[in-house]
């Protein structure tokens, strides 16, 4: 089983940060806005330059090409981006079973992006990311822009998926209740680094 290790990570003068996440574990991360949580996830996804070491199992970040690393360590931003007109153009291939698991059917592939609700967009963005079969998911406030009903729905689909596929997750949220539902440990990020929060 693969684990995910972050050792002495420094990025944009933040850090050093140390964190080990066990196989299939979901870790929560909270902290003030602007403290660098998003930058932290971007550094883990190799979108920001960083010093230190990030290991997926035995494989170090710089031993794998960046696109391959990002397929294995998938980052889901708070706001999803779409660049073609229809949903289907954003997917190379998609399993009907996965679609159903996220509350869609094959028809959704024909839909216009402009027709999607914010909840649908976020579920489809997740589905698009999962098509890469990532081993780690970096979730940057995945339900922040959703209303209460959609929020619980996305959360439900997401946790279901994490359990079923034994995927490691680092979940950022301001909602401590949500984090205590989904995560086994919760950390608070401050200028000094990460401190664990008691449940």
């Amino acid at each position, binding site marked *: 089983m693969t684990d995910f290790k972050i050792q002495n990570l420094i990025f944009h003068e933040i850090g050093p940060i140390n964190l080990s996440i066990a196989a299939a574990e979901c870790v929560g991360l909270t902290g003030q806005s602007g403290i660098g949580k998003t930058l932290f996830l971007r550094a883990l996804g190799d*979108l920001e330059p960083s010093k230190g070491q990030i290991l997926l199992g035995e494989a170090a970040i710089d031993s794998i090409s960046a696109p391959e690393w990002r397929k294995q360590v998938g980052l889901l931003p708070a706001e999803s981006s779409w660049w073609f007109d229809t949903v289907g153009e954003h997917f190379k291939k998609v399993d009907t079973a996965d679609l159903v698991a996220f509350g869609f059917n094959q028809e959704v592939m024909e839909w216009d992006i402009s027709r999607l609700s914010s909840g649908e967009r976020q579920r489809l963005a997740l589905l698009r990311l999962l098509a890469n079969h990532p081993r780690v998911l970096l979730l940057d406030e995945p339900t922040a822009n959703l209303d209460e009903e959609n929020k619980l729905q996305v959360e439900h689909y997401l946790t279901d998926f994490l359990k079923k596929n034994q995927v490691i997750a680092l979940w950022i949220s301001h909602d401590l209740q949500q984090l205590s539902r989904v995560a086994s440990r919760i950390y608070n990020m401050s200028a000094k680094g990460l401190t664990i929060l008691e449940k």
Partner: protein
Amino acid sequence: MQLISLSAFDLSVASLLIIALALLSFRLKLGLTQRILVAGLRTTIQLLLIGFILNALFARVHLLWMALIAIIMFTVAGREVMVRQKRRFIGWYGFAIGTLSMFLSSFTITVLALTVIIQIKPWYEPQYAIPLLGMLLGNTMNGVSIGLDRLSSSTFNDRTVIEARLMLGQTWAEAMREIIKDSIAGGLIPIINSMMVVGLVSLPGMMTGQILSGSSPMEAVKYQILIMFLIAGGTGFGTVAAVWMGSRRLFDDRHRLRLDRLRKG
């Protein structure tokens, strides 16, 4: 047919048009008065200067003189490409990407045309080399600067989408595919359009000039066809090279979008 030589008086009459335009701009408060006058003045001085230089050069054919002229032309064109960018590359890249791609296309094609097609001896005979290089460079410069400008501004505007695509594991080339395509098209469409309407709507300046100076229209037309093909090739290859080099520079080895390598012009 004989060439009718223009006198200083003839040109002064023509310059009244510029002065009238400047006056109109002043009355309408277009804010262009000074620029119109400066542009008119620059046209006169720059062309008189190049006239003197060409006269001198035609009298002393030497590769070194030609090389010097070519270097000056490339430097000015490279600077022009740079200042036309709303967002430029920082450091020497801002100058080098445009200049190098223009050199690769315009210079190669000019030398090719001189040695293989026109077969003038020596190949750097200024009477042929300078007008050819000048026309190619002028057009390539437009293509390259439109292509680069579109590349940098589209990349800046679409940065969220580009990064989203990188996050999904796309390479920089995959994430930039549409932008690269559009930028190259932007640089190429003007020359394609002008090839479409040449002779029907527009009579190119070069051909007109040749006819005015007494060449037979058929000779002028043949030269014009040659020039159009050379320009299309020069603009096309130059734009492709510049857009490719530019987009490569916008990403680092880890396929990260590096907008910090651009600055506002």
